[in-house]
């Protein structure tokens, strides 16, 4: 069978095509929009499954590649493809989007049509970021996906939503503005040196950019854009605002996928394009990552609001990812990648469950709960699994990533690993203390006695996430196996390019 367009483009543009169709359906039928939106997202998930089954984990090459001419005089092409890193993130996106859409089944009653369309457009934007192998194309998706997220926070968010939405957009825009200049500078430097003017990422990554001020500045411009997105301390201040104000579906996508675009950017662009600068600035990244790990954990501990607690815990967890990536050794990088997926699953699930309890009680304050186990045992049990996964209990997914990151960090410096390990301890403190106050003890508020336990829809939302939480925890090789070859090749590339540059 011949397919007119490639599998990867189909996965990427299916949600957007569905969104365009839904725009024509009258808004009087919110149920149709909900169902159709979910169906489109599930179809995207189904179409993306062959990416996993047909992906060759032993190869470090880009697979499912597609190249179409787009702006030939500029050297811009529509070039997509995935390797072991983007494969996992693409699947994470296609998994979390239907879950997020279904989580909003009752939560979003206002302007359902617009909400569903916005979510689907957002999915296309996120997938596009992960599959793009052309700097221009990447930038297009990177910027385009800002607007749907802005609308989701700003239109369907909480009381302070406009402030949070504008802050989110402006932070991201300032970062990406400088990245655009760096992209152009890289393009012209490469063109002047080789005679080929192209935005093609694999071509640019093969070229050795001379080390020095130019490379350092370009690295910093890219790094700023990504650090804001991650968010790396001290660029994290937009995150708690955005998370607290966003609707549950928005928080799930924001924590689950959007933050990964930052760490993915470091991995895909900063390391291979600017290897010397990456080595040079690694200590700075370590320092910021460790500060983020510890600071995020401390601030989480004292949060009275469940959602804010989870938001700050993201700062801490993403610190681990950054630490792993910049160790620039195999264990650290694999750990960082797995930790990206883990954080998407665990934190996505945490936000889902906080959203469920919020829908019931219309409060997220820890003080308003207590003794939930007696009222809603199923919810409490699943919540425990998710909390344990987030704090890195062996046997669940969080442990695998954090362990590998720490192994990687130990090779760089035992002190670094020691400092980062305190973050795990603090994570246990804030998560278990929160769990204790919410779930154990006597029922302190009468309203909580009337809470109902998980509905079948909510079970269905959580089941796939829990499945992966356990699967990655028990048998991580299924996932690391897809990504190890890619990371080994990436490391080899970074090291050889850095040494070539040193030899000159």
């Amino acid at each position, binding site marked *: 069978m011949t397919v007119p367009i490639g599998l990867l483009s189909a996965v990427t543009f299916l949600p957007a095509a569905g969104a365009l169709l839904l725009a024509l359906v009258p808004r009087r039928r919110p149920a149709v929009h909900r169902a159709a939106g979910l169906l489109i997202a599930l179809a995207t998930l189904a179409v993306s499954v062959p990416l996993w089954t047909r992906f060759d984990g032993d190869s470090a090459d880009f697979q499912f590649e597609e190249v179409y001419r787009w702006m*030939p005089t500029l050297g811009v092409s529509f070039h997509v493809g995935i390797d072991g890193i983007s494969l996992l993130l693409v699947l994470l996106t296609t998994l979390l989007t239907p879950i997020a859409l279904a989580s909003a089944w009752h939560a979003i009653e206002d302007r359902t049509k617009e909400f569903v369309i916005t979510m689907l457009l957002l999915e296309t934007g996120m997938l596009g970021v992960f599959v793009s192998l052309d700097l221009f194309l990447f930038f*297009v998706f990177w910027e385009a996906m800002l607007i749907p997220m802005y609308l989701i926070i700003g239109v369907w968010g909480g009381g302070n939503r*406009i402030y949070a939405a504008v802050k989110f957009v402006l932070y991201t825009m300032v970062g990406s503005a400088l990245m*655009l*200049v760096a992209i152009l500078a890289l393009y012209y430097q490469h063109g002047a040196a080789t005679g080929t003017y192209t935005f093609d990422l694999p071509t640019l990554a093969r070229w050795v950019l001379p080390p020095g001020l130019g490379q350092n500045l370009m690295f910093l411009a890219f790094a700023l854009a990504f650090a804001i997105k991650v968010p790396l301390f001290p660029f994290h201040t937009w995150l708690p605002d955005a998370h607290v104000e966003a609707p549950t579906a928005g928080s799930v996508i924001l924590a689950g996928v959007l933050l990964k675009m930052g760490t993915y950017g470091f991995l895909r662009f900063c390391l291979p394009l600017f290897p010397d600068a990456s080595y040079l600035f690694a200590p700075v990244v370590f320092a910021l990552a460790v500060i983020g790990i510890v600071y995020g954990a401390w601030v989480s501990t004292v949060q009275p609001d469940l959602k804010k607690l989870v938001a700050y815990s993201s700062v801490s967890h993403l610190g681990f990812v950054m630490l792993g990536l910049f160790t620039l050794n195999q264990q650290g990088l694999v750990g960082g990648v797995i930790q990206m997926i883990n954080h998407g699953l665990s934190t996505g699930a945490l936000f889902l469950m906080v959203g469920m309890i919020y829908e019931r009680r219309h409060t997220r304050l820890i003080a308003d709960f207590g003794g939930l186990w007696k009222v809603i045992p199923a919810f409490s049990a699943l919540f425990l699994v998710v909390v344990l996964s987030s704090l890195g209990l062996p046997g669940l997914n969080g442990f695998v990533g954090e362990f590998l990151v720490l192994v990687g960090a130990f090779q760089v410096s035992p002190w670094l690993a020691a400092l980062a390990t305190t973050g795990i301890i603090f994570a246990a403190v804030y998560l278990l203390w929160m769990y204790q106050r919410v779930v154990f003890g006597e029922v302190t508020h009468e309203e909580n006695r009337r809470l109902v336990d998980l509905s079948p829809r909510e079970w269905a939302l959580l089941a796939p996430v829990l499945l992966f939480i356990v699967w990655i925890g028990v048998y991580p090789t299924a996932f690391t196996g897809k990504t190890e070859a890619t990371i080994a090749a990436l490391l080899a590339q970074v090291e050889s390019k850095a040494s070539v540059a040193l030899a000159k």
Partner: protein
Amino acid sequence: MTPDFPVPPVSISVLLPALIVLVTGALVLLLDLLPPHDSKAHLGGVALLGIVVAMLAIIARWVAGTEERAFRDMILLDRYALFFDVIIGYAAALIVMLSMDYLGRTGGESGEYYALVLFATAGMMLMASAGDLIVVFLSLELMSLSLYVLAGLFKTRLTSGEASMKYFLLGAFASSFLLYGIALIYGAAGSTNLDRIAASAAARNGDPLILVGLALLLVGFGFKISSVPFHMWVPDVYEGAPTSITALIATGSKAAAFAALIRVLVVALRGVQPDWTALLWGLAALTMTVGNVVALAQTNLKRMLAYSSIAHAGYMLMGLVAGGVPGAGAVLFYLLAYTFTTVGAFGVIGLCARAGEEAVEVGDYAGLARRHPWLAATLALFLLSLIGIPPLAGFVAKFYLFGSAVRAGYIWLTVLAVLNSAIAAYYYLRVIVYMYMREAEGEGVAVAPSLAGGLALAIAVVGIVLLGIIPAPFADLAQAAVAPLLR
């Protein structure tokens, strides 16, 4: 016996696009005297038809690929002129379509309105074709005088009168600077023809007369393209003029002024390129920064777009600083994208009214997305394109422009420009905040149904999406249009 005064050979074909528009304008004036007297909408139809015919002539010319010069090289109809004719023609056509219902609703309907729009359009087209400083001046005046009158169309509104007066006085002042500059350059070079100026300026390297003339020319053009510090008239005129005319001033007039400016600089004054590059660097940096920063403080949408149009002029000047075919080509492409976007944005404003008045305050747009989701989405698209969000025309246009500046080594100017774009996002997004995230207080905004207006907006939306997704053919045309100039 031959006459003492040599009569240059008359060529109709080189004037054809502008001539069609001018004749249509005269025809509209004539038809205005005939019945029906109660409605003038049919005159809009005649005007539109004239512009469409002119566009067809332009496109036929482009396809034929011939380059014509006539009247002793005073008028040129090359690809460069044709490219601008397309921009100007599109702007004029969309504006006529948007005006049809707008004028009836606001009580400004009159036959001379359409005639003056056509005369202004002809002036703009001639500016793009000017091969001589005298023609630059004459066509600039043809355009400007028509626009001065149009700005004051709402005779009973104080702001409209103020706009007209201010535009006229400051415009006349700027024109005299321009004329003085032309005189000095004529004194130094002995000719007003662009090619001959280039030849003699090259022979007289560093003549102070030429430099002073250049500075005065930049003052005159700076006024028309609304660059800082010659921008003082912009907010008041944009606010007071009828919205359709604001759109024409913001797009057609700006495009025409850029057309003449680019041709004068890169053809006649190429010998002093380092000098004008340095001057324009400063103007560009100042213009985009002042425009964006002041726009942050505006609550009136028309004033906000006025400052934003100043900022966009600053971005476009960057392309001239960068120079070469990529730089100038990027400016042409930017003007194309900017014209579609800006006409559309003003078009939406023209359709919206609140409590019997035009809805011009940002707050008037609260809750628009709930009442009129399609119109709100349309305005949002135009605003996003102005910010430069892909995949819309504004993004690609900025990309080409910033790319040309980086290519020429103006990294810091580009950094300033991208930071400016990020600042600009704030005030454009504020309108979206009102439309989508706030609810209307009291009487909400009402939208006048308008078939022609809706069609114009649809064309503009298709334009910005098309330019955003497949920009390459259009950008190549823009490059092909400027390439002969820079030979």
